[in-house]
């Protein structure tokens, strides 16, 4: 793979039909003592510049593993990618050499993590850690890199950046630490930013600040944002489109308005109905029964069938494909028409 084809600047545009980032039929498995865990089972999604894709799912649904595969930060082994493509501007990242991959990671595609305190190194100052991006990737001198770090801290609105650059991570509050993570991730103007539960550990008022900051940075640079979350409220607030994951597969993907108006998969529908609503106060909440499946012992057919109120006999035997519903909408349910229409209960 030649590096030149990867250097297409966003200004040149002209991506044609090829999205900025396309995950195609990705499979990831982990070899464990108890057996092979298929964490990701044929996931496909795509992202365009300036777009926000929300990947929604519970723990163990494979949403973070997919993101780590895109970043190329999975430990292999035990992880293995037996099948699939991750195309960034038309180039399959999985076929690149380690060296070429390093050029993409952090520079073209970067990531922020849930827990900023454990993602930052406690024994270096934040200035040193932010400026490291410029020293390593851009070969800048220490002094220039530090000046750049101050600029970035200003950009993510950390007050008194010039003084605080010599502070250590523990001297910052949770929200400020997440801003430092964001500063590091946007340091090299990436085209894709993956945010893995960026606000889960934060208070709501701070969450609102961080989401606003992310939206603003996205508007400025037109980067594509993949937001991994389990919070249906955050998704409704910022996403353009949604991919819902369950047990390593995408069970539904759709533009944000469609999914909240009328979900086409029983799992999505169950999640939306289990949100406490004002008009139903005092009544029992709708709860999806049962538990998420054990990835070592997946149900046959559709992985959701043991918990599904729409289940028929063929759900137990045949795994549903991702049915096209309309335009950009898909649902992996044999009975998506019934789910769209109404209520089996």
């Amino acid at each position, binding site marked *: 793979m030649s590096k030149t084809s990867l250097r297409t600047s966003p200004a040149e545009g002209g991506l044609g039909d090829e999205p900025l980032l396309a995950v195609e039929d990705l499979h990831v498995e982990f070899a464990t003592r108890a057996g092979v865990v298929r964490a990701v089972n044929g996931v496909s999604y795509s992202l365009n510049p300036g777009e926000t894709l929300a990947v929604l799912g519970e723990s163990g649904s494979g949403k973070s593993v997919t993101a780590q595969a895109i970043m190329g930060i999975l430990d292999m082994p035990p992880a293995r990618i037996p099948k699939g493509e991750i195309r960034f501007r038309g180039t399959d990242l999985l076929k690149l050499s380690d060296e070429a991959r390093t050029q993409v990671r952090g520079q073209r595609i970067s990531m922020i993590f849930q827990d900023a305190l454990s993602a930052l190194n406690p024994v270096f100052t934040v200035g040193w850690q932010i400026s490291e991006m410029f020293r390593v990737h851009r070969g800048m001198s220490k002094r220039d890199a530090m000046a750049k770090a101050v600029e970035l801290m200003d950009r993510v609105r950390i007050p008194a950046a010039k003084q605080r650059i010599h502070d250590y991570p523990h001297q910052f509050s949770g929200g400020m630490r997440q801003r430092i993570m964001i500063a590091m991730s946007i340091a090299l103007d990436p085209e894709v930013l993956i945010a893995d539960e960026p606000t889960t550990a934060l208070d709501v008022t701070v969450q609102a600040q961080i989401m*606003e900051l992310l939206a603003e940075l996205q508007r400025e640079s037109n980067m594509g944002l993949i937001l991994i979350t389990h919070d*249906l409220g955050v998704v409704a607030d910022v996403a353009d489109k949604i991919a819902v994951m369950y047990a390593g597969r995408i069970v539904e993907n759709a533009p944000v308005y469609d999914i909240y108006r009328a979900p086409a998969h029983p799992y999505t529908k169950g999640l939306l109905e289990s949100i406490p609503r*004002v008009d139903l106060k005092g009544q029992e909440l709708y709860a999806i029964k049962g538990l998420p499946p054990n990835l070592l012992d997946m149900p046959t057919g559709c992985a959701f069938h043991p918990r599904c109120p729409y289940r028929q006999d063929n759900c137990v035997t045949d795994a549903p494909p991702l049915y096209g519903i309309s335009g950009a909408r898909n649902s992996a349910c044999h009975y998506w028409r019934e789910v769209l229409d109404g209520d089996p209960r």
Partner: protein
Amino acid sequence: MATQGERILEVRDLVKHFPLTQGIMFKKQIGAIKAVDGVSFELNKGETLGIVGESGCGKSTLAKVLMALERPTSGSVVINGRDMAKAKGSELKRMRRNIQMVMQDPYTSLNPRMTVGDIVGEPFEIHTEVAPKGDRRRKVQELLEVVGLNPDHINRYPHQFSGGQRQRIGIARGLALQPEIIVCDEPVSALDVSIQAQVINLLERLQNEFGLAYIFIAHDLSVVRHISDRVAVMYLGKMVELGKDLEIYDRPAHPYTQALLSAVPVPDPEGRESRERIILQGDPPSPANPPSGCRFRTRCWKAQEICATEEPLLQIRPGTAHLSACHFAETHDVVHAG
């Protein structure tokens, strides 16, 4: 069955300060973290009081003081007419039976080396009068059944259960001594969305069945609204607003409550561009050195001179029907505005 409306818990001017010390040999107090700084409220039988606030506002310290895990610096916690803050020895032990706790994290609050039977039955070891020795196993199995677990799993270890099931174990332990009050400190925030609803339903069912009163501490405002009869909002060790759930959510009077409510993402994209959002600047100040007067004034858009000099008391303000602590309290529906 308990009759509704009977006063069961009364907290008056509760203060908990943690000393800040300097020096190794000769410790000298140089200040105090004012974690809870003058909180008053009451709780009736069978009622749920929701407590919301951000991290550092003192809600978990409040829970610990109510549980008598921490002794208050001053103030009183009166349970059924007796002050737990002054109780000692066997009286304190007896009072503790009546107020139990469900913790946030079912992964760390259960001892991994104890079986479920031992965990749920441990309260009986301390309060031996509740269940005679030969009766304990049967009692524990009954409790497991009440919270929706298989009584045959009594000999299993916590790691053999999922997060939601573990939280049920924690709830069973809380129920063991048949308390009248249960303090739930973020009972569902560590659980997956599809499991949260199951646990909330369980808590509501148990409340109806046993006439329990809950103090429900959480940061998820929609969950609090669903389960609570009344809601208290805390900021930096103080209660800033207290009222019925409808009053707090539809007619909030304190600017902080309004900001908090407007910051909660609404799970519906419809009209998201026009929604009103009050984005607070900065972080809450340190509880070691809170601002003078009103503690919220450093982040408040309504702040005037009086806010720095005079502390607003938690009282009913003109034009509102519930308690709020703001000189310029004014009801404003942030949730439905826009």
